[in-house]
Every structure is written in structure tokens, then in C-alpha cells.
């Protein structure tokens, strides 16, 4: 089969969920050869005189790698920066949880790496749904990120000679990943946090912790401020400036269970979307195959374990459903189904993430999953109990290489597993299950990282990003820091050069309206006083999303999901129970506001997944697969970014296509045979 095969046409009902808008003609990358574009852009961008910078205010929401790095850098440049986070300290942002590493085209290993190769791998890894120009720039600045972080005191792994160590990561054939044991994200974030705190001390950055953005302020067509809720006092107040940067991370928590921190949310981005910012490719989510499975109904989040476990572990489920409750050690070899080795003899347990994930789900759907049976609502609305887990067995490798060798490779992961599950993976097989891990979609941005609202910039995982339909391992940290340290600080000046913009204050009508709208929404949430807790509705949303908009999507399933989400929205706005009051530390209220936006986002994700009748990267449409069950793209029809414009409450979202032009890389279909 070839990529040019026609996609299955959409059913009549499906296409009624959205409206077509005009294409986005240009993402504003400068002309010229790809390796000159960034240099050209930096040269052509208008500059702000250092003496004028303190008169310009930049509001940055989020203090992870993308936000923290941008705040520090803009502070150093002399702008007046205000930065906001919902946590009690900027150091808590969820960038901290990234384990593996950060890529950079340093070619320290002399193994044919280059900027072009990193660019190529990223575009290919993204299944040819990323914008070439942005990805090239990402690869270009990657080396400078490492320099910057080392200078800040990030303790990357080193060799005995005192130089930096590298490893290969995520199936890439060059060793370009820099790492700090299994805590690279933490170390990079602390580097950015320290740089940020240095600017706080210098007085250029004003840090507002425990402040959650609840509305965007637009005056005369420009993003001019945000409305925050002070999470300690409940005060709802406007913050005004000349540009707004959203660095608010991904939206994996739309699934309720994900590897994201429980506080991660999409409210800032969604508020901006409602005010006109396009949302790019919302259906692209990455699902990681090796997470610790759900233990029961009270599960609040999922924990990822490094994929490297699949190098030596063998994945299996019992052949017979009646064996599923047995002690796995009692199940004889002939009654085990090593299904990945069976279906994909060439790659076996090392098939790509999405395939491994999908097959695990299939096994469990067949009733051959293992571990505790957890209640879930089936498509028929009935509650059923399903075992959601497959074995990842190290018995064979322990027998072959000895416990000591296995411990030296995976000791820390085995310890982590033992702590969470109470089971000893040296004795019994691990249980694993896929979990939502990263969202490639996000607010649409141009080459300058500016959204479709002038003056509103979006960085890091919050933008629709450089990862296309699928992100490569060790690339998220690279993108966050690239946006924060190097890209945004060199593009936002082009916009700010025209500032300071007209003087506005709390009494400016648009500002007062935004504040009132935010207050009104909070008041509404508090007055419903229904019967259901916020979390119970969130869990239901998560189940809908996981079932229909998770690893495998179908037209009918997505239409069902949209119907269910709409009903759930009704349920939420008429039957949610939010305890307490606004003028207080009220976590139920915080979660309710976030959930309301997740519900709306969930619907848009389903619409996006419905409209994209091809499989690419993290998006798998059952209707579009090869005979071997692999993802099949349709480049002739879908080689574009889907940028969705808000269609009003109850209205249809409007689809703007940004065609993707591949000038430096040839489009290819991936194959794992």
C-alpha cells in the first residue's frame, strides 16, 4: 500500500461537526534556504532599545522549561516581566518529571550527527506532520541549550575525563542524548528556576505563585493581559502588559489518568482559544506503553517507567482468559501468549510505542489482561470489570544474565516499581499498561511562536509544537528550552518594538469585562450545588476519551464520544457540586474550572480526530491501516496542520488548514517490518 491511497470518505454525519475556514497561507518564516531562515529572521526582526525595555511588560504564564527559561531570559534582557504559576514555587512545574534526556546536535560522539540529521529524525519521528522551518531551527539551537545549561550548573552525566556523556535514546542511531541519570527534566528545570530566581532578585521578574490564569484580556485586537485567581485569597484580578506568553504545558489530563501532574491543565490555553487563538492538531496525543497499571477506582495518576525495559523484558498475557487471575509463575510456558513476538516477529517486544500500546489494549479488551479488575463504563453504558495490564517478564533475562546484571541495568526502575505496586519484579513479572504521556497538539503558532492573536505567544508543550504527530524521546526538553531561551526572546522583540501600546487600566472596558466574565464563571460554578463531585465527572470524561479518542479511533466511536461529552457537559453545568466559597483556598473550585475547559477541549479533540481520516504518529484511525495493522497516512489529503478556530458555545469549530510543505525532506511511509 502506498501513502497516496485515498482515505475512506467521511460519513455525512461526521462532516457536520465542523465548518471549513480559509487556509493559513503563510506561517511567516522568512524566505531563503532552510539553514539561513533563522539567521534571516533574527536579522530582520525589529529591535527594542535596551533603555526602553523596562517600559515594556511581558506576562508569562507557567514556569516550566519554556516559561521559566523565557522569563529569565527576558528579565536578563531588561524587560519588565511578570510570571505566574499555579504551584507554590516555579520549581514545581511538571517539566521536572521528564526522565530520559535532552537531544542536541553536538556530534560529540563523532557518529555522523549533525543539525540536519536531528532535524530529519525529528520530522520523520513526527510522521511528517511537523513544520519543517520550526524543526530545523529547533535542531539548530539545540547545541546552544547544552552550553547554556552546563554554564548554569546543570550536573549532566560525565565521563571520567570530565566531559559530557551521551547515550542513544528512543531508537535513534546516533548518541546525541545528554542526561542527568533518570532526572534530566528535574535538573534542567532547576537550572531554569535558578536563572529565574536570579532575575527575581534583580527585580526584573516579578513572580506570582499560586496564581491561576482564568481569562485572557484582549484590547483592540491585541493580547494585553490576563486575569488570574489568587488561589490563596480567591482574589480575581487583571494583570496588564504589552505581550502575553502562555507556557502552560500539555493537556494530557483531559484523560483524567495520565503521567501528567494532577494539577496540569489546559485552562489558560482554552481561555485563549475561546478568544480567538487557533488550536492546532488537538487529537495528537502520545501514549506510552510502559506505565504502571491502574490499581483501582481511586487511582489518581499514572507513573511512567523507562521504555528501556522493553530491551530485555518479554511481554505476554495468558492464552486463556481463565488463567488471568492466577499467579503468573504458575502459568506454564505453553499457556502464555508472547503476542508482540507472535505478531511482529522481526521487531518483537521493541515495536514502536503506539503499536505496543495498541496491542496491549487489544489483549485486555479480549479479556486476557492481568492484574486487578477495575470497574469501567463500557460502550453500552454498563459498568464492567476489566483487568488492564500485561506482563513484562524478566525471568528469561535473569536466568540468562543473572540477577546482578539485570539489577545493574534496571535496578532503580525495579525499585520504583516495587515501591508503587508492592511486588518484587525480580520474582514476579511486572505488570504494565499504556498511559497518556504527552500531547503534541496545542495552540497554533507561527514561526515567531505568536498565536493567531497578535501579542499572544505560546511556547513549549502548550503550542502545537515541533513534534508533528508524534514526539521523539528526549525532544520535549529540547523544544521547551529552545523556545524559552532562544526563540521567543529573539522574536517577541519584533512585536514589542511597536510598544508600549495604548495605556490601559482596570477600568478599560475590555479589561473590566474580562474580570467580570471570570468572576461570573466562578460564581456560577459555586451556585450549581448539584450531586456530583468534580472528580467523578472528570473520571467519566477520562473514560470517554480513553475509550474513543485514545489509542485507536473510529468514525463511529468518535461520533459516540462527542455525544457523550455533550451530555457530560450538561451534567457538569447542572449537577456538579463545588464545596466552599471563592474567597478562600478552594481546591474543589480550582478543579471545577479546569474540568469545564477540559470537557470543551475533549470535544474538540474528538472533532479533530474525526476529521483526520488518516493514521499518523499518535493518531490511529482504525479505518486507515495497512494489511499488517500499521498506521497509514494520506499525504495527498491530510498533509496539513489543522488549526481550529473557536466556533462559539454550541457552534461548530472552524477548520483552518496550514499546508505543510516539505522542501528539504522527502515524505516517506514508516515501516517496522
Amino acid at each position, binding site marked *: 500500500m502506498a501513502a497516496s491511497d485515498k482515505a475512506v470518505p467521511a460519513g455525512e454525519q461526521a462532516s457536520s461537526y465542523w465548518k471549513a475556514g480559509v487556509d493559513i497561507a503563510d506561517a511567516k518564516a522568512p524566505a531563503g534556504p532552510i539553514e539561513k531562515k533563522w539567521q534571516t529572521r533574527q536579522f530582520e526582526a525589529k529591535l527594542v532599545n535596551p533603555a526602553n525595555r523596562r517600559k515594556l511588560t511581558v506576562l508569562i504564564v507557567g514556569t516550566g522549561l519554556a516559561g521559566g*527559561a523565557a522569563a*529569565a*531570559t527576558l528579565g536578563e534582557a531588561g524587560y519588565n516581566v511578570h510570571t505566574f504559576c499555579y*504551584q*507554590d*514555587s*516555579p*520549581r*514545581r512545574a*511538571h517539566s*521536572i*518529571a521528564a526522565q530520559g534526556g535532552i537531544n542536541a546536535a*553536538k556530534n560529540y560522539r563523532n557518529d555522523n550527527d549533525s543539525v540536519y540529521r536531528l532535524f530529519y529524525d525529528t520530522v520523520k519521528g513526527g510522521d511528517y506532520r511537523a513544520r519543517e522551518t520550526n524543526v530545523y531551527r529547533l535542531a539548530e539551537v539545540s547545541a546552544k541549550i*547544552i552550553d547554556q545549561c552546563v*554554564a*548554569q*550548573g*546543570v*550536573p549532566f552525566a*560525565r565521563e*571520567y575525563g*570530565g566531559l*559530557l556523556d551521551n547515550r542513544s535514546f528512543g531508537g535513534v542511531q546516533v548518541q546525541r542524548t545528554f542526561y*542527568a541519570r533518570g*532526572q534530566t527534566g*528535574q*535538573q534542567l528545570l532547576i537550572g531554569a*528556576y*535558578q*536563572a529565574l*530566581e536570579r532575575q*527575581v*532578585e534583580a527585580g526584573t521578574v516579578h513572580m506570582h*505563585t499560586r496564581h491561576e490564569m482564568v481569562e485572557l484580556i484582549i484590547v483592540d485586537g491585541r493580547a494585553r493581559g490576563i486575569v488570574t485567581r489568587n488561589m*490563596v485569597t480567591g482574589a480575581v484580578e487583571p494583570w496588564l502588559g504589552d505581550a502575553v506568553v502562555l507556557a502552560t504545558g500539555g493537556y494530557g489530563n483531559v484523560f483524567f489518568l495520565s*503521567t501528567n*501532574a*494532577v494539577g496540569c491543565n489546559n485552562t489558560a490555553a482554552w481561555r485563549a482559544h475561546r478568544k480567538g487563538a487557533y488550536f492546532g492538531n488537538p487529537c495528537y496525543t502520545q501514549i506510552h506503553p510502559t506505565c504502571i497499571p491502574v*490499581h483501582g477506582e*481511586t*487511582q*489518581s*495518576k499514572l*507513573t511512567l517507567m523507562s521504555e528501556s525495559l522493553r530491551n530485555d523484558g518479554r511481554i505476554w498475557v495468558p492464552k486463556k482468559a481463565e488463567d488471568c487471575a492466577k499467579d503468573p509463575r504458575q502459568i506454564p510456558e505453553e499457556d502464555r501468549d508472547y503476542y508482540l513476538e507472535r505478531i511482529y516477529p522481526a521487531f518483537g517486544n521493541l515495536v514502536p510505542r503506539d503499536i505496543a500500546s495498541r496491542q496491549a489494549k487489544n489483549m485486555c479488551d479480549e479479556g486476557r489482561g492481568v492484574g486487578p479488575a477495575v470497574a469501567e463504563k463500557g460502550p453500552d453504558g454498563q459498568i464492567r470489570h476489566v483487568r488492564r495490564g500485561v506482563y513484562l517478564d524478566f525471568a528469561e533475562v535473569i536466568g540468562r544474565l543473572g540477577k546482578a546484571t539485570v539489577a545493574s541495568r534496571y535496578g532503580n526502575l525495579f*525499585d520504583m516499581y516495587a*515501591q*508503587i*505496586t*508492592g511486588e518484587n519484579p525480580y520474582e514476579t513479572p511486572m505488570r504494565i499498561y499504556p498511559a497518556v504521556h504527552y500531547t503534541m497538539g496545542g495552540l497554533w503558532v507561527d514561526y515567531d511562536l505568536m498565536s493567531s492573536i497578535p501579542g499572544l505567544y505560546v511556547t513549549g508543550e502548550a503550542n502545537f509544537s515541533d513534534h508533528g504527530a508524534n514526539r521523539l524521546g528526549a525532544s520535549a526538553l529540547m523544544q521547551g528550552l529552545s523556545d524559552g*531561551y*532562544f526563540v521567543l526572546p529573539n522574536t517577541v522583540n519584533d512585536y514589542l518594538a511597536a510598544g508600549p501600546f495604548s495605556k490601559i487600566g482596570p477600568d478599560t472596558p475590555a479589561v473590566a469585562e474580562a474580570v467580570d466574565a471570570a468572576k461570573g464563571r466562578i460564581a456560577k460554578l459555586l451556585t450549581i450545588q448539584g450531586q456530583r*463531585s468534580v*472528580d*467523578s465527572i472528570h473520571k467519566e470524561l477520562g473514560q470517554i476519551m480513553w475509550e474513543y479518542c485514545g489509542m485507536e479511533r473510529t468514525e463511529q466511536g468518535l461520533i459516540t464520544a462527542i455525544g457523550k461529552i455533550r451530555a457530560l457537559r450538561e451534567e457538569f453545568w447542572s449537577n456538579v*457540586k463545588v*464545596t466552599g466559597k471563592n474567597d*478562600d*483556598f478552594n*481546591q*474543589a473550585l480550582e478543579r471545577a474550572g479546569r474540568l469545564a475547559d477540559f470537557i470543551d477541549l475533549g470535544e474538540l479533540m474528538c472533532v479533530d480526530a474525526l476529521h483526520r481520516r488518516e493514521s499518523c504518529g499518535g493518531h490511529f484511525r482504525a479505518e486507515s491501516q495497512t494489511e499488517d495493522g500499521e498506521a497509514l497516512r494520506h499525504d495527498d489529503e491530510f498533509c496539513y496542520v489543522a488549526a481550529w478556530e473557536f466556533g462559539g458555545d454550541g457552534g461548530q469549530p472552524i477548520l483552518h488548514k496550514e499546508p505543510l510543505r516539505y522542501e528539504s525532506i522527502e515524505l516517506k511511509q514508516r515501516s517496522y517490518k
Partner: protein
Amino acid sequence: MKITLRIWRQADREAVGGLQTYQLDNVSEDMSFLELLDMLNEQLTAQDLEPVAFDNDCREGICGMCGVVVNGAPHGRYDSSVPTTTCQLHMRSFQDGAVIDVEPWKAGPFPIIKDLVVDRSAFDHIIQAGGYISVNTGAAPEAHSTPAPKRQADRAFDNATCVGCGACVAACPNGSAMLFTAAKVTHLAMLPQGQPERMRRIKAMVAAHDEAGFGGCTNIGECASVCPKQIPLASIGQLNRDLIASLFKGDGK
């Protein structure tokens, strides 16, 4: 499992707090301690009572946001067989029918915001004073221009794993934040990039530590014992040595 929780409830910073008792049935031993609190909050919400406020975020032991005193020890250290954060403490560490006391961090510089939530911004102030290396973005030399000896780099890393949760302060009979401060001092002191500001940094951070209202260290070691990231007590020794040395240098005069 049946669990009885005695939880510190305090309406706000000024209010007088106290322990309240709650009963939970059907607790699974696979639940984390925070999921137990979630379960309690669902129960309270159903009863139209106000849920217990507690800080948490990543729930995988790395962000440092969670932290309560469980049975007299931060993060329930002595109920767990291994050093842990509260989110990684699991109910299998407790007996069926256990009575568990839950209190917030109690320390002068950590005002209680509500129930189990405290304000730890004093930690940010200590970092602001000097817990960084002054290098503007773009000004960094090539990463390999200064090799860093592996042993020191590893020691820097061990100290850089601090998550800033505040357990050290909560455990300390003196309410001292020396282990937190020492972790940052040692992290940066062990790297060649940290040398130019080393003497100035130690003076500034130690002064900021005291001005935030933390107490002095009496070398007991409760902090290192409860630290989820096992920052060693020896780091405080490093801080002491560096501070003494710095007094003979003119930096910051």
C-alpha cells in the same frame, strides 16, 4: 482496610487548628497516601463538608509539592521502609485498623495557609539570594570548554536532586533549613562553573536562611533521615567549611 485518620484542620493562617477524626472503609493497600486523602475528600464532598486542603502535584515523587507529617514524621518516613515523598507512601505500609495522625509542616517560616497546606516561599528567597550561577542566556561558553571531574560532578548531582519539599525543616527540632541550603551550596560548589561566585554565594544564602526565620543546625540528623532524596548530612559540613573559608575572603564586603 479500615483506616482512622486524625487530620489537622485549620481554616486559615490566623485560625486555631486542631485534629479531627475521620473513618475510611474499603481502603485498598495499593492506594497512595494522597489517594487516601482524595477518597476522604470525595466522602466529605458527598456529605456537604469541606474537603481537606493539601498540596500535591506530580504524584511521582519529584516535584516536591506534597508533604505532610504522618504519624509524627515528615512523609511518613518511619511507616515506610524506604525514604519517600508523601505521594509515594502507600497504604500497604499501614496495618488494617490503623489510626494515622496527619499534620502540616510546622515551622515558623512556613505559615499554614489552610489545613495541611503551608507557604514555603522562604525557600525561594534563599535561592534568590544566591542559589544560582550568573550566566545570561547566550553568554555560555562551549559546554566542553571546562571539563568537570566526574566524582565532583556526581556529588553535585546528588545534592541537586533536592526537591525543595521542606521535610528537612519539618523534621528539625530547631526548624532549620540548613540541609536545603547546604544541598544548593554543595551542588554549585562542586562544579567548576560554580567557583567564581562560591564565596559570595555562601555568605548570601546563609544570611538569607537566617533572615527567613529558620533556626540553627544542631547536627542531629533528623533532616537527612527523612529526606526523600537522601541529601547527606555531610552537605551541611560542606556548607560550614565553605562559610568559615568565606569569612577570610573579601567577597561581599
